[in-house]
């Protein structure tokens, strides 16, 4: 049985004082301190990062982490665009399945605000197909296409989408590590300028810096010594075409559906058992599609369901979504996001989520997407 025994995240935001590896170092030593582990007790490290090679000409990060940790162990980097963190976690879990009595560190990090928005957008576009890049399609553009198709097909408006951002900013106001802690209104969202029609600035996650880390173990004695632990019931990765145009349906992320189906089967629980979820809301439309494709809401009903506010903290529903603030308000340092999502579920299930603590959740789900749906990672934890 693989357990998470600790989580640490840096502040997310515009962290001009800190380099990528300053953030990695803070996250690593933060989680070691929380779990009372020494560096020599770590048997392997998995690092989630997308852009260091593209923006900073900075690769071979695994060796840099060895230098930070002052140890000589296997260290691997995982890259799957915005799902890099989730992919790193999945590989760590797989490593534990092949090796008994080991402690594995999973760290995700990204440094994005050293660069102009155009440079960051160009870097992120590396995760789109060559044809999409050549047409000048950015990621907001690809999700803008998905949103436009969804709104037209199911007869919704931009107002339906705006409820996602209002909810997640409210949650961000309760998370001291979030990039944005300001509550916003429907009017604020609707009056913000367009990024890629019909998506506006306040439909979109920001460009952020940050790092997050968890420790996974299958050492039973180690689990017994820890104050907090959560069981990894499932972690599934599914890939799909990199080009949006090659997908059969433009109003679904097939990789999410498939990863969720396998994950629920392996976890041996039902959708209604999940009390807390972190879903990939890089844009408002993405949370609505995620809720449908994960099987929580029927396809096409998400635009209406989000307006009922049942997934908001304090909203009275049985499933609360994106208590961290999601990518929208907590921020989206790409490689860190997947780890932060899993970390938030860990905090909730182990009753460490403070002002945003959801009551009585026994099972939680984290959902991380790369690109416009070319990779999806679904992780289910339980206590």
């Amino acid at each position: 049985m693989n357990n998470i025994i600790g989580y640490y995240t840096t502040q997310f935001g515009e962290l001009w004082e800190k380099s990528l590896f300053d953030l990695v170092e803070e996250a690593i030593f933060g989680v070691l301190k929380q779990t009372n582990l020494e560096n020599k007790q770590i048997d392997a490290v998995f690092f989630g990062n997308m852009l260091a090679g593209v923006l900073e000409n900075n690769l071979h990060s695994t060796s840099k982490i060895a230098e930070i940790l002052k140890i000589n162990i296997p260290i691997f980097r995982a890259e799957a665009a915005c799902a890099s963190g989730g992919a790193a976690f999945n590989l760590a879990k797989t490593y534990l399945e092949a090796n008994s009595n080991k402690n594995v560190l999973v760290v995700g990090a990204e440094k994005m605000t050293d660069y102009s928005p155009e440079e960051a957008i160009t870097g992120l576009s590396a995760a789109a197909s060559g044809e999409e890049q050549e047409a000048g399609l950015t990621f907001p553009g690809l999700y803008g296409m998905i949103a436009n198709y969804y709104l037209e097909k199911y007869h919704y408006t931009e107002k339906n989408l705006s409820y996602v951002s209002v909810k997640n900013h409210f949650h961000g106001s309760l998370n001291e590590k979030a990039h944005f802690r300001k509550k916003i209104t429907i009017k604020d969202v609707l009056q913000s300028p367009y990024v890629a029609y019909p998506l506006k600035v306040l439909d979109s996650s920001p460009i952020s810096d940050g790092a997050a880390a968890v420790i996974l173990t299958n050492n039973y004695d180690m689990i017994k010594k820890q104050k907090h632990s959560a069981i990894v019931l499932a972690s599934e990765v599914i890939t799909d075409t990199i080009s949006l145009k090659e997908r059969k349906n433009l109003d679904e992320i097939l990789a999410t559906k498939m990863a969720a189906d396998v994950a629920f089967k392996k976890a041996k629980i039902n959708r209604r058992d999940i009390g807390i979820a972190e879903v990939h809301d890089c844009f408002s439309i993405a949370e609505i599609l995620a809720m449908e494709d994960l099987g929580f809401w029927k396809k096409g009903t998400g635009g209406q369901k989000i307006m009922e506010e049942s997934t908001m903290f304090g909203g009275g529903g049985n499933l609360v979504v994106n208590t961290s603030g999601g990518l929208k308000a907590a921020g989206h340092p790409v490689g860190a996001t997947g780890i932060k999502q899993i970390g938030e579920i860990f905090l909730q299930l182990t009753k460490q989520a403070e002002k945003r603590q959801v009551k009585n959740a026994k099972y939680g789900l984290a959902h991380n997407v790369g690109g416009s749906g070319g990779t999806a990672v679904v992780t289910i934890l339980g206590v």
Partner: protein
Amino acid sequence: MISPVKVWRRQKEIRKILGKKGKILVWTKIFTPGADFKKYAPYPVILVELENKEKIYGQLVDYEEKDLKIGKDVISILRKVRSSTDEGVIAYGVKFKPL
């Protein structure tokens, strides 16, 4: 970094998809582009299904706002697609105009 060789290799394929008619499957308009497309913004990008069922992306040019709708008939044309590279190679590609 776009190598001029990459531009040359891609452009060999363009003539096969010029002058083709199709319909807009979905569209967006980009207001915050990447570095190579800054001077064109805001610009619409459409996904088109050609008459032979092939799907192609491209920017829509010479358009009016009323042309931005699903199902609109368009035709593929040759246009410069991004700012020139440092080597001075002009990247041509496919864009669309309304019919």
